[in-house]
């Protein structure tokens, strides 16, 4: 590495890129297989749940899973802990 670069080092951000990509790619892949209505269903569910509980958008997971030849729509909501809720 050259002298100039040594003094103004760019921070090593590759691991950050990898981590962000890992998450977004996994999320997009899971949505890809699903029916077209899933994103809309997810956002409408989010609105309904928000009426009662303060949750973040990423706390709601709507997935279509295959179990024993049946499609199962799985909804999982991570409710905020006491500290967050207060």
């Amino acid at each position, binding site marked *: 590495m050259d002298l100039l670069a040594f003094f103004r080092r760019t921070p090593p951000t590759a691991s950050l890129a990898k981590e962000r990509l890992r998450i977004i790619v996994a999320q*997009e892949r899971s949505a890809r297989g699903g029916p077209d209505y899933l994103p809309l269903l997810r956002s409408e569910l989010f609105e309904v749940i928000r009426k009662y509980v303060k949750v973040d958008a990423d706390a709601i997971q709507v997935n279509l899973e*295959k179990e024993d030849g049946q499609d199962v729509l799985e909804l999982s909501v991570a409710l905020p802990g006491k500290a967050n809720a207060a």
Partner: protein
Amino acid sequence: MSLETDSTVEAAVADSDNAARTTPAPLRSGDSRLTEIIVVTSGKGGVGKTTTSASLACGLARRGKKVAVIDFDIGLRNLDLIMGCERRVVYDFVNVIHGDCTLKQALIKDKRIDTLYILAASQTRDKDALNAEGVRRVLDELIAEGFDYIICDSPAGIEKGAHLAMYYADRAIVVVNPEVSSVRDSDRILGLLASKTHRAEKGEEKVKEHLLLTRYSPRRVATGEMMSVDDVKEILGIDVIGVIPESQDVLSASNAGTPVILNTESDVADAYEDAVKRLLGEDLPLRFLQEPKRGLFARMFGG
């Protein structure tokens, strides 16, 4: 495994065109055919699709294969410039599809390599000038002419041109830069390859997919500024057919209209040669993943 991907096919994005679905059944039966159709695609623009198409086409043709390379970027013709035949374009891909000329009249024979032919994109029409049925006819005629490889240089994006470039592919080379938006777009393209191609729709054996990393900087990988080949491979989960180092030689080659693989002085040419050999089935280790050793002077002053 394949069942799962097939079920995703049914549900997948319904945005893309129906033209492809109404295509008459193609003549080829897959296995009895010797021609391989390869799409060079990426989603994101500016990552090196055309550079890659030109170099792979040259590399294959130099090994005696009969190769046609087709520019699918209708309205933004560029392959002719990279191949250095821009002044010899008389008829283009759209002219052939519309019957304005024969395929033979539109194919430009490369001046350097006997078995290499270029089919230019139309510069005046828009992308709607392409249709699946027309593309099929051109491909079938090339197959009948005994071409060994047809390289489809895809436009950026996921619109019609990109869709048609990949639609009849047997194999896909996904060009990717080790950079977040390029990697994400590549994954989107992989999704389309698994659902929006003729092979996927007919439930045939899936399109073979490979990654080709371009603009790779071993130095920046070493300092943790750039994702490594392994990082990208791990995220996208497909094999790597080549890693092309970042180099000024790519710009010089396009300036001169000589595909970079023909520059015998360049690491880039060696890296593309390796990719061609892998395409032909050779098992080679990846090269140019380490920073080249430089003298103390060069290291201090960035030579």
